[in-house]
């Protein structure tokens, strides 16, 4: 049975929270601050080899032959690997396996992986890669999404049933959209563009693999999805999964960029098998750019109809999504691009038509706010245009169309808690909106936007009825509680969150808890750190396991003291007899008493989503047990001479259900907002006309420094979700979305131009200002 049925948002002992909601330290922060924390590249095994990959210099080509003989002959080379040795395809979504570890028949983008070498050191491996001779036959390069749409031949993937370059097409209509146009008081229709951006976690991907003489494989990898990597290894290496152990050490940031299985995980495993020695592969920063899986660029057309009072009557969307060379999460992206827009506003009628195409570019995937950041940008700008045209305050129009709580969206998503109105109130007040909007001097302005996001999804990637998250507790005679969780802590603090939940539920101090995470040999399965699912699902599983353990302790101690169970209380690691002040037990003593009664102590907990989603094909994709809500207000200063946009301050209010640790929640809100704001004009994952990346380095791809980052004020709104762990929902992805349209809308307030194509470069600002001046002059 699922944990959600058994506990709600209240404090477990009925007299307020002791751990939850407090600014507790993270379980791993001090280790990180002192340099002790081990990341994958910090691992060095005896006798370890280093490996490198040969990558394609062509965007689209057939491989006619690969000759590795010279590389193999080089001194210091221990193993060479080519694609034909691992012919089985994989992909994170089991319906679309279209990736090979190394190219078998063709290459699909510049940087696609062709061969790999393990050698005594990196320099030798690089030298050996250069000795590999590959004969290519060039094919037409599909550079843009439009080109892909009209160019079925050559198909980038020619083993699919349909010969074309369409990766996925989804068209869904709810209500009757076209019928609204005639009756509408206002129709606003425009094109929007969201460019590609990438995660740029500061830690490059890295993997270390070793095959024992017993035929067992151990892989350490900087991944967000230990479980899926485990499954993919088993599939591609054709190995019994029970003989594979995947361990995620500390991860230096993910943001969705480490949530696919990546070639280096298979390559190191296979090279280790071939060489009989442990093998490491560390990608260069340049290689990380080629791995990408970042934000899909989207060309979007939106049409919104409204009544004169601002009520939205329909929304119609058509999207063209550039998927790059492989599917990755593309099936989900295509659905998310439409499915996640149906809140925080009520859409009485809604249609979306999304097409994801393959191009000869590095594959796109799930970047923070997967698939829904782009449509959110377009729609929030369009909603602002509706407000302007109807002369309604942009915050008011958002209130007016509020979806409500405990309701269902037009596409069948169940909404429980919803703190969106409180978010709007919070940013309105904090930003002093009323005295600023339309009242600031020319060049400065303020804008608002709102959004919602999932807290996990009930779509488990591969169909199964097992729990989506599992947690196991070991209670030791020393007084220590060890929590085993499959959850991937990628810096967001999930290990700490698990410790807080267990501590709260058991009545003990987080200091007496140790969390062992993301090791497939030791930990029960969790599906991974994606879709903002970890707090909600792993948190609930942790509470479930801890509650079972606490019940045992209470029962054993009650029997020991010969009192009713209601008289036993554990507070901060000490067990009290409420009937007798004199009688207490330490945590350790209580564990002994419990072990005497129940034998060796352990418990398990799990979480699975309820049945959710609309009753139609794809109706479960994007359906979540709870949704988070966000609102941003941005204040900008536009230099009308240079076209430069300075974002002065961003206020962001986020409904995270309950803040399990307000410091960590604020960190997520601030980090998300920073990352979103950076997509407005700084970051651009750009290719040239040959499909070659324009500048795969941290110098050319401009992620913000301290000097480029606006002041961010994070405001927490707590709607207390009925099913979240103590009422919590996600905080790690939602607060990115509306940062971008809030800036766009602020630019309109500042200088009266509507920018609809990201990124907003100074040139675009100047062109729009010029156009505006010409229109004004003509009038």
């Amino acid at each position, binding site marked *: 049975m699922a944990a959600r049925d058994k506990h709600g948002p209240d404090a477990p002992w009925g007299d307020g929270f002791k751990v939850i909601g407090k600014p507790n330290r993270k379980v791993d922060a001090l280790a990180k*601050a002192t*340099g002790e924390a081990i990341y994958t590249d910090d691992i060095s095994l005896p006798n370890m080899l280093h490996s490198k990959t040969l990558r394609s210099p062509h965007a689209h080509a057939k491989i006619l032959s690969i000759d590795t003989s010279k590389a193999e002959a080089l001194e210091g080379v221990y193993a060479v690997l080519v694609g034909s040795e691992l012919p089985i395809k994989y992909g994170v979504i089991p319906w679309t396996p279209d990736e090979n570890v190394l190219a078998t028949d063709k290459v699909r983008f510049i940087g696609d992986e062709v061969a790999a070498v393990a050698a005594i050191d990196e320099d030798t491996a690089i030298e050996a890669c250069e000795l590999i001779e590959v004969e290519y036959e060039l094919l037409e390069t599909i550079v843009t999404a439009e080109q892909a749409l009209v160019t079925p031949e050559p198909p980038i993937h020619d083993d699919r049933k349909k010969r074309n370059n369409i990766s996925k097409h989804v068209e869904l209509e709810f209500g009757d959209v076209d019928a609204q146009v005639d009756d509408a008081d206002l129709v606003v229709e425009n094109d929007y563009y969201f460019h590609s951006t990438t995660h740029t976690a*500061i*830690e490059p991907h890295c993997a270390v693999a070793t095959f024992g003489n017993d035929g067992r494989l151990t892989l350490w990898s900087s991944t967000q999805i230990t479980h899926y990597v485990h499954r993919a290894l088993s599939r591609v290496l054709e190995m019994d999964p029970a003989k594979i152990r995947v361990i995620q050490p500390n991860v230096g940031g993910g943001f969705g960029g480490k949530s696919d299985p990546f070639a280096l995980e298979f390559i190191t495993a296979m090279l280790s098998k071939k060489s009989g020695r442990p093998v490491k592969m560390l990608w260069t920063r340049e290689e990380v750019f080629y791995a990408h899986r970042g934000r899909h660029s989207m060309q979007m057309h939106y049409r919104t109809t409204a009544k004169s009072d601002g009520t939205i009557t329909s929304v119609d969307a058509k999207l063209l999504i550039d998927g790059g060379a492989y599917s990755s999460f593309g099936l989900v992206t295509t659905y998310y691009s439409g499915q996640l827009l149906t809140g925080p506003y009520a859409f009485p009628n809604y249609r979306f038509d999304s097409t994801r195409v393959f191009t000869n570019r590095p594959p796109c995937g799930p970047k923070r706010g997967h698939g829904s950041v782009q449509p959110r940008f377009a729609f929030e700008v369009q909603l602002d245009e509706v407000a302007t045209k109807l002369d309604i305050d942009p915050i008011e129009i958002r209130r007016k169309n509020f979806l409500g709580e405990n309701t269902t969206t037009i596409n069948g998503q169940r909404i429980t808690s919803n703190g969106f109105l409180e978010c709007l109130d919070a940013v309105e007040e904090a930003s002093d909106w009323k005295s600023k909007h339309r009242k600031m001097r020319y060049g400065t302005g303020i804008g608002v936007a709102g959004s919602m996001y999932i807290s996990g999804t009930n779509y488990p990637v591969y169909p199964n009825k097992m729990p989506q998250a599992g947690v196991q507790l070991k209670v030791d005679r020393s007084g220590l509680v060890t929590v085993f969780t499959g959850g991937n802590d990628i*810096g967001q*603090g999930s290990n700490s969150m698990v410790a807080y939940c267990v501590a709260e539920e058991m009545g003990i101090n987080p200091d007496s808890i140790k969390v062992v995470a993301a090791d497939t040999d030791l930990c029960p399965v969790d599906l991974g750190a994606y879709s903002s699912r970890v707090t909600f699902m792993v948190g609930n599983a942790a509470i479930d396991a801890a509650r079972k353990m606490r019940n045992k302790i209470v029962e054993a101690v009650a029997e020991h003291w010969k009192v009713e169970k209601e008289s036993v209380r554990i507070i901060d690691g000490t067990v009290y007899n409420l009937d007798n002040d004199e009688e207490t037990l330490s945590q350790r003593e209580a564990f002994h008493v419990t072990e005497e009664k129940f034998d060796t102590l352990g418990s398990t907990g799990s979480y699975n989503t309820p049945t959710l989603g609309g009753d139609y094909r794809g109706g479960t994709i994007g359906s979540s047990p709870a949704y988070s809500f966000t609102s941003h207000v941005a204040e900008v200063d536009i230099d009308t001479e240079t076209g430069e946009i300075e974002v002065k301050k961003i206020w962001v209010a986020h409904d995270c259900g309950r803040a399990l640790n307000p410091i960590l929640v604020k960190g997520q809100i601030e*980090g998300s907002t920073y990352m979103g704001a950076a997509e407005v004009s700084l970051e651009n994952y750009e290719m040239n006309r040959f499909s070659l990346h324009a500048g795969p380095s941290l110098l050319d791809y401009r992620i913000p420094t301290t000097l480029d980052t606006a002041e961010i004020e994070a405001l927490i709104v707590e709607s207390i979700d009925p099913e979240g762990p103590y009422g919590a929902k996600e905080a790690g992805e939602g607060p990115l979305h509306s940062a971008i349209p809030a800036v766009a809308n602020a630019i309109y307030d500042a200088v009266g131009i509507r920018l609809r194509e990201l990124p907003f470069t100074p040139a675009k600002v100047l062109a729009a200002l010029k156009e505006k001046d010409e229109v004004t002059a003509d009038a």
Partner: protein
Amino acid sequence: MRVFHLKINGDTVDVAAPEHYTLLEILRYELGLTGSKQGCDKGDCGSCTVQVDGVPMLSCLVLPSTVESKAITTIEGLAVQHRSDGGEGASLLQNAFDAAGALQCGFCQPGMIMSAQALLESNATPNRDDIKQALAGNLCRCTGYTQIYTAVESAAKDGGENGCS
């Protein structure tokens, strides 16, 4: 191969390494001082920042032969220094980063902390702008920097109160 004579965190070490190795490679792969991180190997990210005679430097751009006579401090050295000064556990600044929630993935933090430490040593009462300037070469992809400023500010405040940095 060549032998480098280095002074690292108060220890004098002789390390044999390929001539072209950077200081970062020596630290991480020859000495096992893996606290300094490599995010780009090109001088763009700051995660490899160490102090050389008290000045923050990007160890991925430093050839070890150029710093043989100098005192190199890495993230591992901060707590060591703090304890030899009579303190306990981690340094004030490291603790402040922990308390402020400034550490998410933690990968930028060794470099960030080394830059911040150098700032506090030269300016015990930095304002927000001083902090931004001092940390402008250290990219953090997780935090949005706000909690990092808070950490440095609170360490400066506590350092002032306790008469140490």
